[in-house]
Each structure stands twice: as C-alpha cells, then as structure tokens.
C-alpha cells in the first residue's frame, strides 16, 4: 500500500489527498511533504455528508474540511486521538485531560481507514516507530479500483467490471477434458437442426409439388416418401437420444469438477469466511449456482446453436425464395420481441415474489415443527395457525396475480404468431391462385413460420440466461479464487513433533475493524503445563484459543509456538498437533469408531478401543447393541451430552496432540457426569500443554496456573492458591460468588469448588 506521490513523498498510507485538499492545506501553511498518513472521511460533525480529511504529521493531526474552509489542528503533545464507534458511524475524539472534543466523524464506509489513521496517531504520540504493518492493515479494498463503485466485501472483483467474456472462457475451460464427447454432441446438434430445417421443405414443396402433383419428380411415390420420412424421423430420434445422453453425462461431469473444486477451496478458507453472513449466503448458493451452469451447458448451449441455425436457415431460405412473403413473416416479430422483453420480466417478478413468500411460509412451517414443544407448552397453536394462514394468503395473492398475468400474456403471444401465419396464408393463397407460387412452397412457408417464433423467443431471453449463468459462475469462482486470511507462509517451517511451548507477545486482535477483542495480551505456557483461562463470558478466552489454533491471525503482536511465529509454521503440521474438546461436540455421520478415528483414520481397532477406555467411553459403548459400529445420526441413536463428549475426548486421546485445548468441555454436563469426564480429561492432559477454559472453576483444579482474562486483557496470573487469597482479586471474587451460589441453592458442597 504505497501511496507516495511526487506531492506527498512521505505519505505512507491510506488515501491520497486530491488537488483541492492539497491547495486548501497549503493555504493553511501545511507542507505536503510532512504528511505521513492521510484518510478521507465522509461525514461532518453536524451529521451531513461532507468530505473531511485527516492528515497526520509527525507531531500533529490536521482535520481539514475544504468545502467549508474550516480546519482543526491537534498537537500530539497536548491531545490524545481516540476512536468511538456508534451504530453505523463513529467519532474521532481528541482528548486532553478532562477535555474531550469531537474532532471528526465518519460513516462505516470510511471506518477502516479512519481507524487506521487514529492508530497511527496513537503510535506517533507514543513515539513508537511505524512499521509497514501499520499501513498494510485494511488493505483489502471494497471499492472497485477500476470503476470506484463499492461492492460486497469478500469478493475479489467488482461484479460490474468482471468481464463476462473471460468468465465464459473460464467455464468453457472445464470442457477440453471432454473434447471427444463435446465434438460428438456438437455434431449431433448441427445434424438435428439441419434435419429440422429440411422437414417443412419435405412436408411442403416435395410432398405437394413433387409427389402429389402430376409431372412431379416423384409423382405417385407416396409409400417411398412416407418410408423416407419415417426414416428421417428415426434418424432425428437417434440423434437426439445420443446427444441428450452424452450431453447430460458431460455437463454433469463438468459440474462435478467445479463442485469438487469449490468444496476443496472451501476447506482451505479461514474461519472468518464462514462466520461472515454475506459469504454464508454465497455458500448456500453454490449448489444452485452449479446447477445453473449445468443447465446452461446441457440445455442452453446446444439450444442456442440449434436456434441460431434455425433462424439463419429459415431466414435465408424464405428470403431467397419469396422476399415479399418473407417480409410478411417478419412483420409481427418486432411486437413479439417487445412483449418478450418488456412483459416477461414483469411476469418473472411475480415468480420472484412468489418464491420469496413461499420461503417465508416454509420457515414458518419449519419453526412450528422444530419448536413444537415450545408451541404446545405455551399454548400458542392458534397463533401459529394464524401466522401460517397469513403467509399462505400472501402467497395465494401473488400466485393469483401471476396467474392473471400469464393468462393475459401467453394467449396474446399465441395470437400474434397465429396472425402472422394467417397473413402468409392470405398473401400466399392469392399468389398460388395467380400461379406465382406452388401450393407446396406455400405449405413450406407455413411450416417455417411455425418454426420461427420459438427460436426467436429463445434468442431474446438467451442473453439473460447467459448473464445469469455467468453470475453463478462468478460466485463459484470467487470461492475457488478466494485468498485465505490465514495464508500458508512462503517457506513454511517443518516443526516435527511440537514440544508445546506457547507464547503470546503483546497480542491485539479484532474480528471486525476497530473493535478490539484482545488488547496487548502476553503470557507464556511451558511445555506440559496446564493453564486455566478464567473470566466472564465475552472476556476473550475463546478468542485466545482461536488464535492458538490459528483459525484467525493476530492483528498486532506475535504468537509463538516452540519459539517459532505461528504464521511461519506449516499449517498441516500445526493443526495435526493441536487437539480440541469443545462444549458443543460435533460428531459426524458414521460409526462411533470412525468418529473416534477422525484425526487418525488409519488407527487400529486396538488403538480406538484404548482411546475410548481412556476417555471413559468404553463402557457405555459396550451397552449399545452395535458397539463401536453404532451409527451416529442414523436410526435415532440417542447419545447423551456426556456420552458424545466422551467420544470427542476419545478422538483427542487418539490424536495424541502436543497442545490440547479444552473449551468449556464439561460445562453442559451434570456434576456426576462431569466427574467421570474429569477423570478422562486428567489422563488426557497429563504431560501435555493444555489450555482449558471453564466457567465452573472446579474444573480447573488441576491447572498449574490460572490466567484471568477481563475485557480482553490479562487481569491476573497465578496459581489457584495465590489468586484465591488475593484481596480484591477478580478470581477471588468469582470463586466467592460460585461458593455463594451453591449455598443459596442449598448445595453447600465446598468440595465442588
């Protein structure tokens, strides 16, 4: 992100001021060469859109509003620059002692760059050196560099500027793998359209003028003619069957290729991709997008070729043999084109609305069925029925409107086409009587006219179809092409067996720009040590584990595993040596044995059983009729939360990870089950670097050290004994509260703590 220019030789980042701003600040005595960072904001402090520039020099921040001629200067030795975020806007505050000024405002469009410049100001004020990292952040532009239009995050190319042609070529790029089949299909397609063109000629001119008319070339040879026609139809049938079969096979294979590439790409994407709502939508569409492409390749392309040949062929034949009649045929075409282009989209809109309403209806049905216990317990059956009826009514209304419209359009189109035919009959009949044309030619014309309008209809809509397919292709390629947020290092380090030394150095992290969840977190876990992460919910504990497993990368600071920066470690090695047991266990469809062996598919039966035994799972598995081969997710295998948890522990045991993460592994279990699982966990954690998160503090009694996290910062560190007795300490307070809670409940079992 080099923003240097001749005017601004020292500008390192964010936005480059335009001429107007440059002139304005020059007028204020500001030297452009002193400016280190610049950011444009789009909102004035009084809440209207305006261009506002934030310009950072080494010792001060200048806020310039060229439109109104106003400006403010905040010297870093007096003012601290801070950021405050609201619903969709934010404010840059200048703070000095008790004084707080709103220096600038911004909408979320500029939030990232304004946040970045504030961070730069903070570093300048603290006298800290600026690294390239400070300027590289937020590099991912969401404004198209080509046309300047903002577009959806997470896409690499602006949909406006994406070249459809290139996309099309890329889709076709999947085809050469099936060269032979495709050539065959194309050949068949051409053959069948030529036969199609021949048919009216045979039915018309040949039949009437040559077979049925005296003096014709084949006069009286009705039987051979009929046999010939039967033969021709058989040939067409054969051609169509062959084309359909090969076409379906090839297009399915191409879609299969695309889908497996998408799925492969999806597995390599980072967590942030999956957590983002918009990309979530993208994912859901992958399947229907792939289908779109398949339809296009299977039906659209061959149809396009057939129809193009048909139109050109008919046009040529008709025009050459009878120009006047040809003109008559063309007469209703503009009207038909108009109707198809103008009216059909309206009609399709009703289809969309109908689709939307019916998906609403489906979600109501879904809610009512999945939530049937709640519905019944609260006695809300009637209101659910009411909700359903309202949605059904809405859908019904749209369908009626759609029906009314289609009842209007399609007969009209039909009428127009019939009229065209009648014109031909009229003028043609007259010419036949006058002797200018044979009856057979007239029949041929009538046959052609019937064949012409359908291809026209198709060709008019084909662009939309094509564009739609290209859009689907684009979404799919976006996923395939997407760069992961946690990229593999260029020269990844092979660690071998990880010892389990984990160190966080000044780690700051934000899921969303400007909203830090962790602030300067530092701690060091020795190999084999068990650390308990304690803190209120939302304090940032799970975020820390997300960073250690590298589901996300730190925003600032460093995370080291065995002294090596986590970003440099080969990801496969890292993930192969970090085990996780989470509160929400996830078991895949398959047998218990397969689930235990998930991380080590080549595990022997003995290993699996041993892991299950260590996880205290063996005995309950033995009670199941199918034992280790019990299918999970099928035939209503009801495993309890504790049982599922023990299977996931067995999975971790078998994996034998160097670093183990327990995130609320026992939180959803009753105390007795928890105790059994605790035993299982003890065997698992022994001698292994373990980072455990638990709200129930009793779970952490084996931890060597506790790290108390509060509001994204490390508040306390120490052993249970040290922290429990610390007067006014957070841990001591939490411990006290949990004891109290048990007393109130009449449990009073201090052993639990």
């Amino acid at each position, binding site marked *: 992100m080099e923003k240097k220019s001749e005017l601004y030789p020292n500008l390192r980042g964010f936005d480059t001021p335009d001429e107007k701003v440059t002139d304005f600040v020059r007028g204020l005595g500001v030297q452009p060469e002193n400016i280190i960072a610049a950011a444009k904001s789009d*909102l004035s*402090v009084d*809440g*209207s*859109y*305006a261009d506002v520039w934030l310009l950072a020099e080494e010792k001060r921040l200048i806020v310039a509003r060229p439109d109104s001629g106003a400006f403010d200067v905040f010297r870093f030795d007096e003012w601290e620059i801070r950021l405050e975020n*609201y*619903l*969709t*806007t934010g*404010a840059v*505050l*200048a703070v000095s002692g008790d*004084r*707080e*000024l*709103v220096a600038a*405002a911004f*909408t*979320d*469009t500029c*939030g990232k760059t304004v946040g970045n410049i504030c961070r730069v100001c903070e570093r300048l004020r603290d006298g800290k050196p600026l690294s390239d990292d400070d300027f590289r952040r937020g590099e991912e532009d*969401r404004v198209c560099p080509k046309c300047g*239009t*903002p*577009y*959806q*995050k997470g896409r690499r190319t602006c*949909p*406006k500027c994406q070249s459809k042609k290139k996309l099309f070529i890329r889709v076709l790029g999947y085809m050469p793998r099936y060269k032979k089949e495709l050539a065959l299909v194309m050949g068949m397609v051409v053959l069948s359209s030529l036969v199609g063109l021949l048919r009216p000629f045979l039915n018309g001119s040949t039949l009437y003028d040559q077979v049925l008319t005296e003096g014709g070339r084949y006069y009286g040879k009705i039987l051979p003619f009929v046999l010939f026609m039967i033969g021709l139809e058989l040939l067409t049938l054969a051609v169509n069957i062959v084309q359909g079969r090969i076409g379906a096979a090839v297009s399915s294979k191409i879609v299969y290729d695309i889908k497996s590439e998408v799925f492969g790409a999806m597995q390599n994407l980072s967590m942030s991709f999956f957590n983002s*709502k*918009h990309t979530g*939508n993208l994912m859901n569409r992958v399947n229907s997008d792939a289908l779109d492409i398949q339809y296009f390749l299977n039906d659209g392309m061959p149809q396009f070729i057939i129809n193009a040949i048909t139109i050109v062929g008919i046009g040529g034949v008709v025009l050459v043999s009878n120009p006047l009649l040809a003109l008559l045929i063309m007469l209703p075409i503009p009207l038909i084109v108009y109707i198809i282009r103008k009216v059909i989209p309206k009609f399709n*809109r009703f289809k*969309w*609305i109908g689709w*939307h309403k019916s998906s609403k209806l489906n979600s109501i049905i879904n809610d009512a069925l999945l939530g049937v216990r709640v519905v019944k317990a609260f006695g809300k059956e009637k209101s659910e029925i009411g909700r359903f009826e309202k949605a059904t009514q809405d859908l019904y209304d749209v369908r009626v409107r759609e029906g009314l419209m289609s009842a209007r359009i399609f007969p009209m189109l039909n009428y127009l086409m019939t009229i065209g035919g009648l014109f031909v009959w009229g003028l043609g009949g007259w010419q036949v009587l006058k002797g200018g044309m044979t009856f057979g030619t007239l029949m041929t014309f009538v046959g052609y006219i019937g064949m012409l309008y359908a291809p026209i209809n198709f060709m008019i809509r084909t662009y939309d179809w094509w*564009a739609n397919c290209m*859009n689907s292709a*684009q979404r799919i390629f976006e996923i395939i092409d997407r760069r992961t947020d946690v990229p593999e290092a260029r020269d990844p380090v092979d660690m071998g067996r990880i010892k389990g030394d984990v160190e966080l150095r000044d780690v700051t992290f934000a899921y969303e720009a400007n909203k830090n969840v962790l602030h300067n977190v530092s701690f060091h876990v020795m190999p084999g040590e068990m650390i308990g992460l304690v803190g209120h919910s939302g304090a940032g504990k799970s975020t820390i584990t997300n960073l250690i497993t590298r589901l996300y990368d730190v925003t600032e600071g460093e995370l080291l595993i065995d002294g090596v920066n986590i970003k440099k470690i080969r990801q496969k090695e890292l993930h192969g040596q970090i085990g996780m047991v989470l509160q929400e266990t996830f078991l895949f469809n398959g047998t218990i044995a397969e689930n235990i062996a998930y991380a080590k598919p080549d595990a022997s039966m003995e290993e699996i059983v041993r892991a299950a035994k260590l996880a205290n799972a063996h005995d309950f598995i033995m009670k199941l009729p199918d034992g280790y081969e019990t299918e999970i997710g099928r035939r209503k295998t009801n495993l309890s939360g504790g049982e599922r948890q023990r299977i996931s522990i067995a999975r971790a045991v078998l994996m034998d990870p160097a670093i183990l993460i327990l995130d609320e592994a026992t939180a959803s279990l009753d105390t007795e089950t928890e105790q059994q699982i605790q035993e299982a966990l003890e065997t698992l954690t022994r001698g292994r670097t373990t980072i455990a998160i638990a709200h129930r503090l009793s779970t952490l009694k084996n931890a060597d050290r506790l790290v108390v996290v*509060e*509001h*994204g910062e490390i508040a306390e560190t120490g052993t249970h004994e040290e922290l429990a007795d610390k007067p006014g300490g957070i841990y001591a307070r939490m411990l006290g509260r949990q004891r109290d809670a048990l007393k*109130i409940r009449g449990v009073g079992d201090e052993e639990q703590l």
Partner: protein
Amino acid sequence: MENKMKNYADINYLAPEDCEFYRTEGGLLGLKMRGEDLGRVALVRMFPLRNTDNFISVRRELRDRRDSRVEYGVIEKLSDFSGEQRAIIDEELARRYFVPEITKVVKVKEEYGHTYWETETTAGSRNFTVFDLNSNLLNLGNNRVLIIDVDGNRYIFPDVTKVGEKALRLLEIWL
C-alpha cells in the same frame, strides 16, 4: 431472594425534573442528575428500529471498557422532555443513530445481486451499493423500509410507495 429478583427487573425511569442534559465543551452529551454532575453519558435506544422515541437507556459513557454495566436510568418517553432539553437529546440521538432518510431516488440500477443507488437524503446526496436485498432490507411497517449498504450504513425510505416505479419494483419483491 424474591426481593433481589425484583431489584433486577426494576426499571428506573428518569423524571425530567431530576435531569439536566447538557452539551460538553467538545460537543458531547453530559448529564446532571439532581444537581450531581455525572459527566459524559451515552443514550442507547432499546428499540432502535420501530420504537425510536421510547425506552432510551441513559448509560455511563464507555470511556473505560470496565464500566459497561452502569445504567443511570431510562427515558420512558422522549415526549416527557421538551424545549432545549429535548433538542439536546434529539441531537445526541441523531449523532449516535445516523440513519438518513432517502428523500429522492435519483437513479437505481440492479445487476447481479447488487443494487446501485444514487439518492438524495436528509444528510445530503449519497451513492451507495446494496448487496442481496433479501438480507439487507427490513420492513419496519407503515411503508417504512430500512436498507443496509455493503459497508453497513443504514438508510430509511420513509414511505416506500413514493420511491418511484423502478425502485419500488426492486424493493417490492422483498417486502
């Protein structure tokens, strides 16, 4: 125990006569309650979409992350406040909840799931892009419709039936 429960559920409605909202030197909002200066406060709407004028929580400003739990009280109805007090509150709410109303759609274009808008709003002219109207449109009732652009900015159509034919055709599908 029951007593304790009750305390938690109590809503401390602010009486207008106890409160004196003021503008700080720097243009921020401060509050004096029964003569005691509480310094900067934040106004947070409980129902920011459909009931913007009722139930507004007055909270200690989050200058320090640790203080997030302090609620000084609740403004039950904005209409309880009048004159300058009301003006100060409205101004602060407008600053925190910046949702311009679209007064005119100059141009709108749809292409492949993105809609490109050129509009006049109560805060000036603005061009923006909305992706996937289905998930970024909220029908607030009474023909009021909220849309969210690709950057998360929000805009309101105060009367969706008056946005013009083309825009209405686009929006109608998702209403």
